[in-house]
């Protein structure tokens, strides 16, 4: 059983998150500002922290920075600000993920699960497995010999085309492929205006892999240029 520290100055939000997390079988510790969160983390072992940014006293950013000095547990930031600058700042000081308010409970659970799986798998199985056949990026693992894909340990069922697209992107992380390039390389046909098909397949792929397909973590849309696998 994992212990999750929930920290937000809005008590209603904390108790709502508490309800969701306990119903998923997690134990929760509540805190209502940054200092309380620091104390709670010191008094008991915690596996994951959900941290609001805007809080009186010690705010979420500074609390995260302080926590990172001692712990490497996953920290997910909760933010009402949707500016990219805030997200980048949060990620830079050591947060692992962020969720923008108002959030969807299902998304919160999914992200919590994802972070916990990565945290535990990184701790347990780092360096293991057949690296020649195994392609990994973040929580995604693709075993080309078994033709199987797992995301955060969960098996994902892909169609052959989706699989081949994912394979192409995983082999070239960070590289941008245009739709016609993907078509030519995956379909093995000259692209003759069938690029819409590629976009549709990639969206399906995103829906299967990403927690929030509209804000993908792995398969990023580079608008006007193509798609790429974000290196994590």
């Amino acid at each position, binding site marked *: 059983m994992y212990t999750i520290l929930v920290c937000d100055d809005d008590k209603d*939000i904390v108790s709502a*998150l508490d309800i969701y997390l306990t119903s998923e079988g997690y134990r929760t510790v509540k805190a209502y500002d940054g200092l309380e969160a620091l104390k709670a983390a010191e008094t008991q072992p915690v596996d994951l922290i959900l941290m609001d940014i805007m809080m009186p006293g010690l705010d979420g950013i500074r609390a995260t920075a302080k926590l990172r000095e001692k712990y490497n547990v996953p920290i997910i930031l909760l933010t009402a600000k*949707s500016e990219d600058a805030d997200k980048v700042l949060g990620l830079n000081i050591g947060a692992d993920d962020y969720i923008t308010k108002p959030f969807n409970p299902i998304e919160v659970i999914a992200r919590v699960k994802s972070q916990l799986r990565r945290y535990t798998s990184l701790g347990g199985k780092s360096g293991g497995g057949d690296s020649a056949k195994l392609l990994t990026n973040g929580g995604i693992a693709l075993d080309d010999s078994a033709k199987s894909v797992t995301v955060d340990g969960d098996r994902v069922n892909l169609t052959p085309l989706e699989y081949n697209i994912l394979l192409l992107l995983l*082999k070239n992380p960070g590289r941008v492929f245009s739709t016609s*390039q993907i078509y030519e390389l995956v379909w093995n046909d000259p692209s003759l205006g069938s690029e819409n098909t590629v976009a549709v397949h*990639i969206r399906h792929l995103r829906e299967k892999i990403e927690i929030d397909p509209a804000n993908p973590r792995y398969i990023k849309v580079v*608008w*006007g240029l*193509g798609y790429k696998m974000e290196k994590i």
Partner: protein
Amino acid sequence: MKQLGTRLAVRVLAFLLALGTGVGGVWASLFIFSQWDTLWTGVGYYSSNSCFQNMNIWYNQVVELARLLQYQEWDAKLSYLDEQRLADLEYKLDDTRTNFRFSIRRNDTGTLVYTNLEDGASMEGSVHTVYRDSISMSYNDGTERRGDYFVWNGEKQFYLLYAVLDDGSEQLITPNDASLAAKYGYTFNGYSWDYDQSKDTRLLYVELAVEYGVDPTLPVHDDFYEGAADFTEYARYLPALAVLTVVLDLSCVLLCAFLCRTAGRYPDQKGIHLTWFDRIPLDLLLLLEAWAFLLLLAGGDPMAVALNANGPTTDLVVGLALVSCGIGLCLLSALLTCIVRIRARTFWSNTLVWRLISVLGRAIRNIVNSWPLTGRTILFFLLYLVGTVLTGLTIVLIPVYQGLVLWLLCRWTIQWKRVRQGAQRILGGDPNFKIDTKGLYRDLAEHARQLNDLGGTISQAVDERIRSERFRAELITNVSHDLKTPLTSIINYVDLLKKEPIDNPQIQSYIEVLTRKSLRLKKLTEDLVEASKASTGTLPVHLEPLSMVQLVQQALGEFEEKFAQNRLTTVTRYPDEPIWIQADGHHLWRVIDNLLSNCNKYALEGTRVYLDIEHQDNKAVLSVKNISREPLNIPPEQLMERFVRGDSSRTTDGSGLGLSIARSLTELQGGTFDLSIDGDLFKATVTFPLAPPPEEALQPLSPPA
């Protein structure tokens, strides 16, 4: 009358008629005047002027004849030329060559000297009317008497006469010698002497009586014969001609009156209309017409003389008619244009003199209006002139003085340039800039100070505006942030409610409404923040070259299933060559996302959505067209305003900010965004300038490892 007169054809006809009748009337009048006596005296040819004129000519010849005859008698011999003249006259005055009859007699004795009457014929019986006249002649006229002189006798208070005798001696004659005095033609009047040439025995003196007249039987074909014939002929048709003259003159006057009355009025035009002719400056026009008039007159004069001398010939008549028409044209056009100008009140104003005066007047008025300044300018100019005159006396000082003036002028120009550059800086976005007024000429310094004040006002206004915009953007961000926190709780607890076992279907439907509306609220707050950022320009923009076709394809991939749900089909048309534009991919995606969401929300089910990318003069144009489900009775400009939506009932889940965001984001990236509505056809156009393709796009793709 007035309506008739405004028709052009009528006007032209009247003009030509007036010209014709005028010319005809003038000439007919002239002719009538020349034949005035023929018409009015009515006493017959022998009392007419032409007859008298003729008789006069002949009488003068008779006088000449009489003189020559008398001299012949006195001298017994004539000079050669006088003899020839005498023979000539006798020949001409022969009764077989003229109808003129005359007789010359000595007045004292009545002896006949010469006549062309037949022998025994009496003067009264031969001529129509006898005219009589006398001729006095003296031989050695006055040569003797020239020596006579008077001497004043103081005692007796009278003049004594000294007469010169034939032999040259002088003889004193007193009043007592009356008989002697009478011999020399003198009579004493008690004081001085009267002289009568005819009684002076020293002189040869004769008085001749001439009787003359015209033979009314006119046996000879001469001037009198022709004159009489002409007279009778004219007398026959002159009355008719006189009537015609009166008619012509009258009709000319009437036509002119008609033309004057209607001058300047045209059909379908109110007031007075000025033709090009009426716009020529009047003084110039009149000068030209006077010149033409004088030229025509000078040309017509010899023709008229020739006509008088030789009678009418075809070329003369045609020439005179043309000259007369020309003169008539000058006069009539001048008259009409004067009347038009008076009516249009441009008689004085449209003259060169007036214009000159008004230009001068305006110049003077301008100078007076801006007096202190112009006064200074004039003063400086006068000072300059005085200086020039004074330094002109010393040759050395001329270059020094003129150089000084030139330097002052250049200094003024430089200062003026400083002010102008300052104004440019203030206008060019640096309203805080202050022009340095130190050392400037007085007027320039004042101007510069005003500009500085203006710049200060501008910068204050700009600052205020920026502050208020920033305040607004911050306000919206903060408010939406404060909204989001409670909204999070609402969404979460509604979700929790949903999970509770509730049997009452009513409550379940209530929860459904809460779910929907809380999600809507979430979307609204997100859009609000985005719209505020996009419109205030606080959003960072990263422009990079990207392919518009690629972007649209990616966007369509995102929308495929949503469109399929509403049975919307997409029809795309892309250009053959790749189209690269400079834009922020993420923002442009939001623009297209908004447009496609709009289609999805508002397009009629089962219709097609058209996406065209075109290449138009260095621009990439993306147009999205769809058929609206609801009637669009809103102008496109209004649709782009915030919170305005195509469906006035606002039943759909749009925020009304989509198009506003799309436009703001497009403009933020340097593109243009347009909407047009044609019935139910909704069309959005996004235009971006073309950009060169990125370098890696030009290289062929190497297959991935």
